[in-house]
């Protein structure tokens, strides 16, 4: 098992780091947010419109499935 190295500690006492953190928070605070109801509606619409292009959701007919082993033809 690959062990994850312990995270580098960002010195919270370091003034430069504090300034960077505040600057980053200012960027993140300034964005416009839409309501979750609108975000959800858009996601649901996207899924609905694209469902027919989703083979794993719709199922794949055997004749169109490149991974299905075709049964060998028997010449009678």
């Amino acid at each position, binding site marked *: 098992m690959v062990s994850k190295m312990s995270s580098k500690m960002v010195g919270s006492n370091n003034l430069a780091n*504090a300034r960077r953190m505040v600057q980053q928070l200012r960027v993140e605070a300034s964005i416009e947010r839409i309501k979750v109801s609108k975000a959800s509606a858009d996601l649901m619409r996207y899924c609905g419109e694209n469902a027919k292009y989703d083979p*794993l959701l719709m199922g794949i007919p055997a004749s169109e499935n490149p991974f299905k082993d075709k049964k060998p033809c028997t010449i009678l």
Partner: protein
Amino acid sequence: MGEMEQMKKEAEALKTQIEAARKAAHDTDMASAASGVAPAPRVQLKTRRTLKGHLAKIYAMHWCTDNRLMVSASQDGKLLIWDSHTGNKVNAVPLKSSWVMTCAYAPSGNLVASGGLDNMCTVYNLKTPVIKTVKELDAHTGYLSCARFLSDTEILTSSGDTTCVLWDLETGKQKTVFLNHVGDCMCLSLSPDMNSFVSGACDSLAKLWDIRDGQCKQTFQGHTSDINAISFYPSGNAIITGSDDCTCKMYDIRADQEVISYQDAALNSGVTSLDLSASGRLIFAGYDDFNCNIWDSLKGEKVGVLSGHDNRVSCTGVPGDGMCVCTGSWDSFLKIWN
């Protein structure tokens, strides 16, 4: 008041402001909004191929854009290129370092990349008469956890040194360093429009970055442990994450928050990997408990499971045409399901 004190106060005020703005936008959650949507059908997929050839744990796999070839990486020290239709091995690339953690196929199909505990990303040309190493990208000070090509001339990497880097493959130099995580970066995913990417890290945060200006635009919290897997939703407006906290979550980018969590009291294994079906409706998530669970991304319900591996599922991938899902495992096999 000293500047340090002032900074701390402003930081607290900004965090409070962000939380309040998120709360104000939280007029519902995804599962409630989708309560009227017809449930996804029960998904029962069959193993169509079991790809045998690696001699040790498989750590990563990635589909080629032709939806047929794929590359896998194992700690047996090899990358294998497979033709998924026939199940045959097309190429084997011996690695200088066997401690590989990631592999990637370039969109052109010309190049593959690998990296791991050697802290390097090595890029190989598959189209020369003999497979050649074309670049060794050597600047990370921690392990390489993930790599993704933007083109034959640019690649993005994430590292245990807590940074992500955009590299110029012609010069072999770093173009942009993405600095903001405080824990090992474990995974990354490119947006469909290729203008941004998201990263997941051991600081339990996911971050959205602008590729060109290097800026972290948004930070998504909610997980309580390392994020091991991350993927953009095909619409580009949401991301799915998978974590050691045994849950997957969807974060909506425009609402800037978690909108649904995929979890089950019976599940107490970490999520190692994930990918989405073509419409995004289905999430395929690989777990430490040897299974890959299938979730309805809108309703938050488990709709199927892929059982068949004898060890942890370490990687999961759906090709661009959505025709199947591939799982790779520490049991040394890859399986293709549909």
